[in-house]
């Protein structure tokens, strides 16, 4: 937990101004995230938290997440993840309920820590010895999301619940080589989350 403190502190510092100075200044107001995102699993942490913005009439979202895997769940692992999602469809179920049935998502996870690096140390390995990065992974995901609209004047204007399945570059490479014997379903893994619209 000690090792985590700086990361958590940094994360808090990033978020706090959004709430404190939000009302006063229009420039700062633009920086206020549009939503807060909490997620279980989804390959970016046992639990992760993030903030994000809507673009293009809420059809796309861009967010940044910090995730943590505790020792008891196969960690400790700390992960930073920028995430980009496209929401092509929205179905109005009733006055207050919307469903975004399928949302393609791209994200890049960066695993922190000394066992991980964006490239292998050139002083230790000959050129091209290992070709991949242990820290950086590109993920492709698909989510389905249900959005409950609330009072547009309230602090939390809508609550979304979603399920997301994802895979990553190295899994995809491995699957492709074994595509005749391994079903693609073997490389997709789930995450579940909640999005609170501010």
């Amino acid at each position: 937990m000690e090792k985590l403190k700086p990361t958590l502190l940094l994360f808090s510092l990033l978020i706090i101004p959004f709430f404190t100075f939000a009302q006063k200044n229009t420039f700062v107001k633009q920086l206020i995230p549009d939503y807060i995102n909490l997620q279980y699993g989804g390959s970016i942490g046992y639990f992760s938290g993030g903030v994000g913005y809507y673009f293009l009439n809420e059809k796309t979202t861009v967010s940044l997440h910090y995730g943590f895997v505790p020792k008891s769940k196969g960690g400790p692992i700390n992960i930073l993840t920028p995430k980009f999602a496209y929401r092509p469809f929205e179905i109005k179920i009733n006055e207050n309920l919307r469903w975004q049935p399928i949302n393609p998502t791209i994200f890049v996870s960066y695993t922190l820590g000394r066992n991980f690096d964006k490239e292998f140390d050139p002083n230790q390995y000959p050129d091209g010895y290992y070709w991949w990065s242990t820290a950086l992974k590109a993920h492709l995901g698909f989510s389905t999301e249900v959005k409950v609209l609330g009072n547009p004047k309230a602090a939390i204007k809508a609550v979304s619940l979603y399920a997301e399945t994802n895979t990553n570059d190295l899994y995809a490479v491995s699957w492709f080589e074994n595509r005749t014997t391994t079903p693609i379903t073997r490389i997709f893994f789930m995450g579940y989350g909640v999005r609170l619209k501010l």
Partner: protein
Amino acid sequence: MKKITAYLSICFITLISCNGVEFSPNQKFRDETPQNVNKTQIEKLKPKNAGERIRIAVSGDTQRKYREAALFVDQINARNDIDFVILNGDISDFGQLLEFEGVYNIYSKLKVPFISIVGNHDLVANGPSVFRRMFGDFNFTFKYGDVKFVCFDSNSREYNFNGLVPDMNWLSANLKLEADVKNIVAFSHIPPDDADFDPKLRPVYEQLAINTPGFLASVHAHQHSPDRTYRPNGSNIPFIITNAIVNKAYTVLDIYNGKIETYPTTF
């Protein structure tokens, strides 16, 4: 309505296309991950009388080649003469849990026990933690019949040639005959004459092996090339480098009457 049906089906596919929740591709274990596989497999070895012929199938480097690994398992299961299998390192390619589990799931279908040794690719990222929890120690020994098998970590480059790998103190202590043991065979992933083996420790290891009474052979993998044997310092002790699962090849080792013979096999 048509639209909704289409959406529904897409969502259904999305949701079933998964194997449960993943916390990170680098996580060290999941609830389902097996533990102490080497210990369990060694306990499964069928009793062997002293002096009886021992026949082992050895190959390394499964690395992402799940199809080849499955073919290998079928091959070994089809012949009924193998006592056990050695997976001589590079179980995984990226040191990821999913890879170790993938190979384990295939090898656990073997009718005979399999014993796994750590390779350089298994020591990448969180690989060391995955291997240690799932398979066990990097350096270990076991006895079968009247032969002692000494398995060790020789992936020196992964430790940036720090002079501690292979662990010569551990090897000196374990390359020793004991009661009921007539011969010793050593297994490790990186061959001593490879650039990834600590060049300072190569002569030390070779000399220790040659000087060990009852030492039959040192068996390695890593090079993904046809079987090769060299005998250092004019000795008659074979240092055998076997082919790889990725090349659809394994080597049968016959140990009988204080002698070892090798039969390279492809499938």
